[in-house]
């Protein structure tokens, strides 16, 4: 086996994990871009989507349960914003972040309560769960599909943001919240839309993620959520292509670290990377520089 063949399975896993991080990271980066809020509950919304699917597929065929899962997740994301973030729009930024932490705490405890703390098995999606062999690696089809689907969704999203009126409003709000408000942009609507898109992508991400790793527990989303956030910061928070690139980079480097035998530090590495990035280039790879006005 030569070096590449040896590393190829790791790279493949890294790209796949990266794709899933990317789908979550977009949710973080969009919300941060507009509200300047680290939506700590985003990872939990992702997990709840997993449980929606578990419970619904038990009674309904997949054709029904998949769209229903997505709809319910979007609804959840929308509700969380309306109930927990909207009332705090004028409050200091720390308050709204604390509210996000509170929502995350609530969602985790709710999931714990409903499931009795037991791990649930995710339903098997046909075709996606089949095995496939490419080069030196054998894996599930979903591993290959994930990055492709991610890129497709991101391109679609970029089209939306760059070429529609809603997209323009979103960009305006993220550039200057107050001015956009004065210009008559319906801020609440824009924020809701970004939560809807973020939750939609989280639901899609959860479908792919749990097909790959079919065990759902109430805390399973916490780590991918945090890593996706790191990816968003890495790529320059507020920038969608940045989040995607960051997610793939983190996914791949995490798996390479395991390949080289430092798995103890694979999570720690992600955070170390985050801190280095924040210090060296606080705005990330693609972020824009801002100047505090005095």
């Amino acid at each position: 086996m030569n070096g590449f063949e040896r590393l190829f399975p790791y790279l493949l896993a890294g790209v796949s994990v990266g794709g899933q991080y990317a789908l979550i990271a977009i949710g973080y980066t969009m919300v941060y871009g507009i509200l300047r809020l680290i939506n700590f509950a985003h990872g939990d919304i992702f997990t709840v989507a997993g449980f929606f699917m578990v419970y619904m597929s038990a009674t309904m065929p997949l054709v029904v349960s998949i769209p229903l899962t997505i709809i319910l997740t979007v609804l959840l994301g929308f509700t969380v914003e309306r109930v927990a973030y909207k009332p705090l729009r004028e409050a200091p930024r720390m308050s709204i972040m604390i509210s996000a932490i509170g929502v995350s705490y609530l969602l985790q405890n709710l999931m714990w309560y409903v499931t009795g703390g037991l791990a649930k098995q995710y339903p098997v999606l046909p075709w996606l769960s089949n095995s496939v062999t490419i080069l030196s690696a054998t894996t599930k089809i979903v591993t290959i599909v994930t990055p492709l689907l991610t890129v497709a969704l991101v391109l679609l999203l970029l089209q939306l943001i760059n070429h529609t009126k809603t997209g323009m409003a979103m960009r305006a709000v993220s550039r200057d919240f107050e001015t956009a408000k004065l210009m008559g942009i319906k801020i609440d609507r824009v924020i809701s839309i970004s939560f809807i898109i973020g939750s939609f992508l989280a639901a899609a991400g959860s479908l792919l993620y749990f097909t790959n790793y079919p065990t759902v527990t109430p805390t399973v989303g916490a780590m991918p959520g945090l890593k996706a956030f790191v990816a968003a910061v890495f790529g320059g928070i507020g920038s969608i292509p940045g989040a995607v690139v960051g997610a793939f980079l983190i996914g791949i480097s995490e798996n390479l670290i395991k390949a080289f035998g430092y798995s103890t530090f694979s999570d720690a590495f992600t955070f170390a990377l985050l801190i280095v990035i924040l210090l060296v280039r606080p705005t990330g790879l693609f972020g824009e520089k801002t100047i505090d006005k005095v």
Partner: protein
Amino acid sequence: MKKTLALLLVLMLMVPFLALGEEYAGTITIGIFEPASGDNAAGGKQETLGMYYANSLVGSVELNGKNYKLEVSEVDNQTSADKAPAAAQTLVGRNVNVVLGTYGSGASMAAAPIFEAAGIPAIGASCTNPGVTLGSPLYWRICYTDDFQGDVLANFAFNDLGVKVAYTLNMLGEDYGAGLVNYFTRAFEKLGGSVVADTFPEGTSDFTAYLQNAVNANAGVIFSPSSTTYASLMLGQAKSMNLALPFVAGDTWASLVILEAVQGSDLKVYFSDFFNENDENASQVSKDFVTGFKAWLNANPQNLTNNGGKDIIAAVSALGYDAYMTAVEAIKATENGSKEQIAEALPAVSYNGVTGMIVFDENGDAKKDIAYINIADTKSLNYIFVTTTSIQ
């Protein structure tokens, strides 16, 4: 209005008395200290079921001609070292006379000082870490320990499977896995094999990199004592990778979750166990337990759900049953079932249990020297008995 309220109150206060149909001289409370939620909830619930089943059989004892009610009081410790002390404190607050549990040695060790301070004796059912009883005079244990288990599994891998290189994988920060890997490694290296060690952080979902590491290390076996939550993920990914390496693990893998994970694959999954329901040579006690417990499970859908939905008997249920019965034996040797007297009586207990003879050594560990090695059946949800081993 006030009168009605007062009347209601009086009625409510009388409810407990009404419930006492039979005449009891007193109540002896047996605390169940087990996880009902968290990574180890599945196993904890099965162990608890064994205890409840035992309680359904023996619900009272006669001491000095007086009838005492045996009551169980359960608390969820989530098998986490930080929740365990608070849970243990709850049991202490309920004035239990003896404690059974817990699944997961870490929680046992964390709670031991609290039970000890309150003078409450505790009997571990399936906690295999030697540290549970070592230095804890009031902790007893009815199963074998990790050093024995690690030894057995290393011997099995080296001699029976003929493997020279083993890849070990356990969760960072979990003492059960870390302990077992340690004993396995010592024994395996002593036999002349070599070990490649790896750990995964909590919350890991993607095990492909680790499995790939095992392949790249030219390992002949993956030794991965871990909670069933992670194990099922790991096995699922091994399945998609068509991994040919056999897995070997400790007693936690004797679970329906694992059986479900390997269905329809070619994976070979071996694990040690305390008990096997299909053992032809089992004692009459065991056979009675198997039939009785199955009937009891099937009679109540809630119990069946807690057992994972099937009536396959997990070894931890058998151990839970034995732990309860051991406590009963000790209680029978007392005058009034007080915690002090139970603690005094326990060292002398000799009880022929479902999982074998239970006699304690000076550490408080049952002298057990037989481990079952099973393989998970990939066609139907069942364990296939491979061998029993013991180490001299």
